[in-house]
């Protein structure tokens, strides 16, 4: 029974995949489709993995959607001014990192509630993005070399999938293997206890927020590479979905703590449901209803296992 409670959410994903495979053996259950799902979930996974950092702090960052959009616009604008790929990527990631650091700084030093701080930050970033882009979709001057970081296959595996795997390993490494990660989790568990145990709350908080938006900026770059264009609000849709994935991940594996593998799993559930329902041709309103029900059910599976303990 501990197995069900421990791997309940994974089991949930298994059930979902099984049901779709039965309903659509030739559409859904094909290898190429399954591989494609890994690609479709990857950007969401990367944003959600970033969110896992601030959730480990028991905080929120609501600016991540705006940062995804910003990264796209900033990078294309830089390309337009003649910057090279590497420089552009570094500047964009740096800008993304800076946004989180600012939020983290206010949250840590002045105890501004993160919810409102990052909501405000997101609004500010959104305004700046609009300013830079003039509200238009930008698509010219994107070098082919840059586009290749977000499309195509390496050894039969989509590049984006590799990015998501790398992101998962990165977040797992930080959270589980570094002192920074353990400190972030301790602050999230009991801020005062962590502080009194000598954890530097301010730097850890700033890092967590910075890493969160850094991941969002990475997702923004990959999105731009994938689409070959950048839209000033193109990443905003990631916000709630990323938290949904991260929360699904929290209920998986680690007994209520945010964790990398669980977050990837959460993103997978969301992507599989979207893909499966589209393949089955379910009308869009029923898709919404089913998506909601399936998410609730995936969380519940774990709980049933636990209740039976």
């Amino acid at each position, binding site marked *: 029974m501990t197995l069900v409670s421990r791997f309940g959410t994974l089991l949930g994903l298994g059930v979902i995949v099984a049901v779709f495979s039965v309903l659509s053996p*030739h*559409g859904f259950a*094909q290898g*190429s*489709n399954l591989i*494609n799902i890994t*690609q*479709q979930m990857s*950007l969401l996974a990367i944003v959600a993995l970033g969110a896992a950092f601030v959730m480990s702090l028991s905080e929120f960052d609501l600016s991540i959607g705006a940062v995804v959009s910003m990264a796209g616009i900033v990078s294309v604008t830089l390309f337009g001014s003649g910057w090279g790929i590497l420089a552009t990527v570094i500047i964009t990631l740096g800008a993304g990192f800076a946004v989180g650091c600012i939020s983290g700084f206010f949250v840590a030093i002045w105890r501004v509630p993160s919810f409102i701080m990052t909501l405000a930050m997101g609004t500010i970033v959104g305004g700046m993005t*609009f300013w830079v882009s*003039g*509200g*238009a*979709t930008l*698509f*010219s001057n994107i070098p082919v070399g840059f586009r290749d970081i977000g*499309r*195509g296959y390496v050894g039969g595996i989509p590049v984006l999938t590799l990015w998501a795997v790398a992101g998962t390993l990165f977040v797992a490494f930080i959270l589980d293997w570094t002192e920074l990660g353990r400190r972030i989790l301790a602050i999230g568990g009991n801020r005062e206890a962590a502080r009194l145990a000598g954890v530097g709350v301010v730097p850890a908080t700033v890092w967590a927020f910075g890493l969160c938006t850094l991941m969002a900026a990475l997702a923004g770059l990959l*999105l731009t590479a*994938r*689409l*070959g*264009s950048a*839209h*000033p*609000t*193109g*990443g*905003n*849709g*990631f916000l709630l979905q990323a938290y949904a994935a991260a929360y699904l991940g929290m209920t998986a594996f680690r007994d209520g703590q945010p964790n990398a593998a669980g977050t990837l799993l959460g993103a997978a559930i969301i992507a599989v449901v*979207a*893909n499966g329902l*589209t*393949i089955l*041709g379910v*009308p*869009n309103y029923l*898709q919404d209803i089913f998506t909601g029900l399936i998410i609730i059910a995936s969380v519940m599976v774990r709980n049933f296992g636990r209740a039976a303990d």
Partner: protein
Amino acid sequence: EDIAVLTPYLSSVATNEMIETFKTESAAKGWTVNVVDTRGDFQQLASRVEDVANAGVKAIVLVSVDPNQIGDQVAAAADKGIPVIVLDGALAKGVAINITTDNFALGSLLSDYLFKAMGDKGNIVKFFHSAHPGVRQRELALDKALGEHPGIKVIAEHYVQVPGPIDNARQAMETFVRQYGDEINGVWAAWDEPAIGALLAIQSDKPDSKALIAGIDGNPQAIDLIKQCSNLVATVRQDFPGIARTAVKEIAAVIEGKKPEKSEIFVSANVIDRASLGVSCN
């Protein structure tokens, strides 16, 4: 003169293009234009219309909205003597002029072009978004055209999520491409962004596909892609700059105290395809 421009969809490419042209043209007239975007929020839109009416602007321009959705506020502004001009919307009580392209006509134009290009038979994928009243009209036009062309079948359809329509459409199309492969002969997109998403999916997952994609809006990226001889073959271009220019002209007249001749002005639309762009692909 102060002119207030309000829209819930500033980040939509078409709306943005209209407003940009409007701003440039107004600047030439020496007007001060204040653009307000409420990000899809109609309660906000209602409040902001109240605000600008209170601030006493010379004219209110509503872009890409059905003014009936905020009927009272529009009527109140009109009662204050402030002319309300609607671009790409509809008529309602209090609206001085509505300058638009008929969305139903756009839908018919797109459907007819696509069906003809497909030789009046085959399967299409449909990308739509019924929450937007204008876009919904296009969908209704498609339904009508389908009734007249029994050779065309919709084998898959997808309700596009906004924001992020390109990636959303791309993901759905990737799925459809795997599922139906060569059975897909055409893609009907209610506007250009899903069309671009569909094209990206085909380019990466089934480059040899013969499916023809067409959308609406004359989005610059879409035009670029048509030029590149991709599967995206056409877009129906509404004359957004034309709409904006007409609006500026009409507002100038209204401010001078003239009564508009017609309360509804239709600006025509045309299909942009390889031929009209002068590219040949072989």
